[in-house]
């Protein structure tokens, strides 16, 4: 699971109002190279929740992203885009869990695939 996906994922348990972002409990992290595409990144930047990405990236062992939302001029820079690219697409949670921030419910991640299936009393 890429951090792009983590940034798009929220707890789906019935009644939960603050289900984003899910807290990451990493057990195994891997990196896979992806072609660098500045257009995709610039387009994606406006849709990303920055704090969620920066925090998740740190937990995944990559602390190069600024805590504060970067200025537009910074966003255009190659240096920034390369870091954003790495955090968003190249760092994968292979094994671990995603935890609902409101209820503490753990969603397991195995072989990079989060399991968001709910129990009957959660839907």
């Amino acid at each position, binding site marked *: 699971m890429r951090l792009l996906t983590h940034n798009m994922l929220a707890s*789906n348990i019935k009644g939960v109002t603050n289900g984003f972002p899910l807290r990451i409990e990493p057990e195994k992290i891997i990196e896979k190279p992806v072609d660098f595409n500045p257009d995709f990144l610039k387009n994606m930047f406006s849709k990303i929740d920055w704090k969620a990405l920066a925090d998740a990236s740190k937990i995944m062992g990559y602390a190069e992203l600024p805590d504060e939302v970067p200025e537009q001029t910074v966003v255009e820079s190659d240096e920034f885009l390369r870091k954003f690219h790495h955090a968003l697409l190249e760092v994968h949670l292979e094994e671990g869990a995603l935890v609902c921030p409101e209820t503490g419910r753990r969603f397991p991640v195995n072989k990079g695939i989060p399991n968001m*299936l709910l129990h009957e009393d959660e839907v």
Partner: protein
Amino acid sequence: MPPRIAQIRLVSSHPQVYAPCDDSFALVDALLADRTKLLDHHPSICMEIGSGSGYVITSLALILGSESKNAHYFATDLNPHATEVTRQTLEAHGVHAELLTTNIASGLEKRLSGMVDLMVINPPYVPTPEDEVGSSGLSSAWAGGENGRSVIDKILPVADNLLSEKGWLYMLFLADNDPLQICLQMRDKGFGAKIIVQRSTEEETLHVIKFWRDPDIQIEGNEAVSGGKTAPQRGFDFLRSQISRLSFRETRQ
């Protein structure tokens, strides 16, 4: 060189996962038929709901290939064996999709809303007793409840929510699902529709229909009055004649 699609010998399998079948091939054929349009569309986020073996999402990633550098793929399935098999199939072809074991797109609906440029779906569409729908085991791969519409009718509003302004949906239906009624229902939500592939096999008549947001279609309750037909209405008359011709052929057999 013809565009590559997933090779059957590289598609992973599992006793509890739906193996590629006529319906899967029809959907991939529709994507192949529209390949040039899909490349011109420059989709950024692409998604499949109910990926099963991974045959379709893998084929899509290969069809768009390196010409669509912007494209990123997501796939979901209710069945954990299916998402795992999809992972293996993608890997065997050297492509990647982000996978999620979930009901339809549960968990993504808030944050991914309005972001998906291309969606492909081969849903469970076979008319069955309602209690077979969503059961654990292979039958949930095809069991569609009454008229095969139970899961389809849950998926359509989710697709509407996830699709971007320029979003396209390619979805497979059986004649029994009443695709014309589905198209009319989608029109009420502002979608145009077109049949891309229609195919009758011994057992079933399959349609792959493409939906897109059509700004010329008036949304719910705003139905155009008077006899003067607008372009989208004409489009639907055409679709209606296509679909009724098809079901006619089917009943004649």
